[in-house]
């Protein structure tokens, strides 16, 4: 299988701090790769570099074989990349349906149309119905997003990241703040995604990590400190040290 996403020696420095330090890895097509690591390890910063919200200090990002290191965020989405946010990031003043419609419109040709009613766009509405039915929120389509329960908002968060029909789905802690039941539900949904969608995920919740991952990368102090299959990671001494919080681990990266 060809690499869908290739990260080469990627770094970003904030002042003297190397938040992401010479990171290289590749995501194969159809793979489920999970990034783990303690707080402040640079996981979300790495995501922001991959999606273009941050500019790297050095290194390269290749997507589908093209160098996208300096492409803006929206252009990467047009190429087939999509992300969800750790902090729920929706359109709180709009209805659930409008959220879905806006989400779907982003990569479609009509997005600059200045004539014709947006909410009356039948083709788009049908797509929105499909999307909302997959996240079980079609019945709540007319409710304002701000009035929904947190768990439902997290579902929309995931729904919006799928709306552009991505080849690479990047999930930033999809179960963040959810109850164990809701978290298990999200895990099930990610497992149910077709193999056409490659998943790169950040997660803390170990049930979610081991429920989804085929390969795991451990980030520590901005660098890749371990990589392997779930079983290898489970047995890895560094991982144990970091997650048990031993003294050795906290000085290991320095």
């Amino acid at each position, binding site marked *: 299988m060809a690499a869908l996403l290739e990260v080469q020696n990627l770094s970003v420095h904030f002042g003297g701090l190397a938040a992401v330090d010479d990171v290289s890895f590749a995501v194969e097509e159809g793979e489920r790769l999970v990034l783990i690591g303690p707080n402040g390890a640079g996981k979300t910063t790495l995501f922001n570099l991959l*999606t273009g*919200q941050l500019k790297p200090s050095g290194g390269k990002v290749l997507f589908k074989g093209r160098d996208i290191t300096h492409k*803006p*965020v*929206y*252009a990467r*989405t*047009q190429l087939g990349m*999509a*992300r969800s*946010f750790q902090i729920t*990031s*929706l*359109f*709180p*003043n*709009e*209805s659930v349906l*409008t959220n879905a*419609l*806006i*989400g779907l*419109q*982003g*990569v479609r040709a*009509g*997005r*600059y*149309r*200045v*004539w*014709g*009613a*947006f*909410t*009356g*766009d039948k083709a788009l509405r049908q797509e929105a119905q499909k999307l909302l039915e997959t996240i079980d929120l079609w019945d709540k389509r*007319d409710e*304002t997003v*701000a009035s929904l329960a947190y768990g439902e908002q997290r579902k929309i968060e995931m729904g*919006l*990241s799928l*709306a*552009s029909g991505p080849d690479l789905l990047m999930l930033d802690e999809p179960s963040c703040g959810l109850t164990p039941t809701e978290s298990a539900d999200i895990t099930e949904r990610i497992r149910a995604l077709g193999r056409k969608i490659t998943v790169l995920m950040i997660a803390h919740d170990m049930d979610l990590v081991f429920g989804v991952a085929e390969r795991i990368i451990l980030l520590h102090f901005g660098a890749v400190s371990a990589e392997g299959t779930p079983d290898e990671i489970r047995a890895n001494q560094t991982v144990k040290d970091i997650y048990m919080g031993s003294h050795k681990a906290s000085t290991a990266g320095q």
Partner: protein
Amino acid sequence: MATRPADVLFGRLARRSASVSPAAAGKGGAAAMLKAWLPAIVILVLMLLLPTFVPSYIQSLVTKMMIFALFGVSMNILWGFEGIPTFGHAAYFGFGGYACGILIVHGGISNFWLNLLLVIVFTALLGAGLGIPAFRVYGVGASDNPIYFLLVTLAFGELLVRVAIAARSLTGGSTGLAGIPYPDLGLPITINSFSFYFLVLLIVVVCLFLVYRLVNSHYGYALRGIHDNERRMQALGYNTWLYKYTSYIIAGAFGGIAGALFAYFGGVMVPGNMGMAMTDIVFLIVIMGSAAWYFGPVIGAVVVVGVEYLSSVYVPDRWPLIMGTIIVVVIMVIPQGIGVMLLGLWRRLVRGRSA
């Protein structure tokens, strides 16, 4: 959630839909459409009949209200729908007015339609020029801290005021550009203060319709998305800079049309029409009427221009004091604006009758 003054200033309010039941819109077909649009149609008919009932000074007052309604609505594209407050919107209003006046007085172009077209082109060009530096300091999702953008747009307006004062041969300097006649339509109709009312009504209604279609289009919903969450919009594939930039130009062009009508209306343009004094008024119009409802600025224009007229009759020279007081009271007491308050009353009335 309680509304805070900062939410009002930065346009962070939940928008209201004009139809009585947003969920039902699109289902009921023609009858529901008619019901939703009935108030607008009634008001339009009343507006057409109004000049036969009221004295000419009231007619002229209503003409001014319509011009400022268009001005407020044009600003609200940016502020209410996209969440971008600007202190420089009067620059487009004044620039449009000056462009119109200079074309007539110095350019010898008397045809109204040609003049209007040129005003739209010139204000759009001005917006295209100023939009690039303005949005460089705006950044992404800056509705939480748009202070640099506010300062830059404020500077644009004041800059134009200085230019207008300095370029005396063209603009008449600080005394203003006088002698702008009523428009020449190029038709066998002469425009006087009576028929000018209907011309303004026509232009304003057409413009309001165009802007209404714009903010409800695919493009318009992208603006709303930027209002709520620009980062997400980018992640969804929208080139948000392009939306912000083009909407700035569009809002400027509609502001310029309002300015041109204002130039014809008063017959004179003064430099202050491009600066902070005029921006204050349009800010007041949008805040009073509500940035969260499409027709809010229309209500705001009626109230502000009405109160300004009353104060000029009864307590001349006290208008700034009154305006300041109103702005504080409205933000503290009805932060959602008079427009949304009236809309709420109207809905209760309609529901009460049909239920």
